[in-house]
């Protein structure tokens, strides 16, 4: 059986074209790709980079659970979830979620579910590094 799920936490830049190609190989009718990027300007402060940290083993286990939940809710052909950790420059992709399905509606819904649950539950944290050298952990969500 071919691999249909890719879940990864990586220090490297995310190779979006490779992920998109992997999703397209499912030969469904829809590929939905969400790319979360690091924001340079928040209110009036300039962020030069973000520093991401994770509890890796738990984060991967929680991502597995979220993907399994999505596969129960929607007829997913292929799915990718890749999150970067370490230093990520402003404007770069920090997270990519992709879903391949037969039709567009379920790919949109599943993609939205995956990113929303990731942000609520997966033990990953980001710290803003500002232009003036200040750093600050981003206020988070309590996993329920």
């Amino acid at each position, binding site marked *: 059986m071919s691999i249909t799920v890719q879940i990864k936490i990586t220090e490297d830049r995310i190779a979006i074209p490779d992920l998109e190609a992997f999703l397209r190989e499912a030969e469904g009718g829809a590929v939905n790709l969400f790319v979360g990027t690091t924001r340079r300007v928040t209110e009036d402060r300039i962020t030069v980079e973000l520093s991401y940290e994770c509890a890796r083993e738990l984060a991967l286990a929680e991502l597995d659970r979220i993907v399994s939940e999505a596969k129960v809710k929607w007829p997913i052909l292929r799915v990718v979830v890749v999150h970067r950790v370490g230093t990520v420059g402003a404007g770069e992709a920090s997270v990519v979620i992709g879903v391949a399905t037969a039709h567009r509606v379920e790919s949109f819904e599943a993609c939205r579910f995956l990113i929303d649950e990731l942000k609520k539950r997966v033990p990953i*944290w980001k710290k803003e590094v500002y232009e003036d050298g200040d750093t600050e952990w981003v206020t988070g969500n309590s996993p329920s």
Partner: protein
Amino acid sequence: MTLTVEYYAILKDVTGLSSESFEVPDGCTGSTLLVAVSERYPKHAGLVASVRIANSESYISNESTLEPDSTVLLIPPVSGG
């Protein structure tokens, strides 16, 4: 019994540690452990109250009894994405 407690993100910064040991009574629950952590770091009691506890596989309830010699992860509010 002894537990190893792991700190992450802001909690790692304020304690200056990624993990440390706690000596707790047998049958200790997650809530009891969090009280012990707050007592060691009274200035950060509010932060400790905001964490979820977990093992390396899943979040666990504050009411659950912790296993002797286990490792407990303190997970502050998450901010991935």
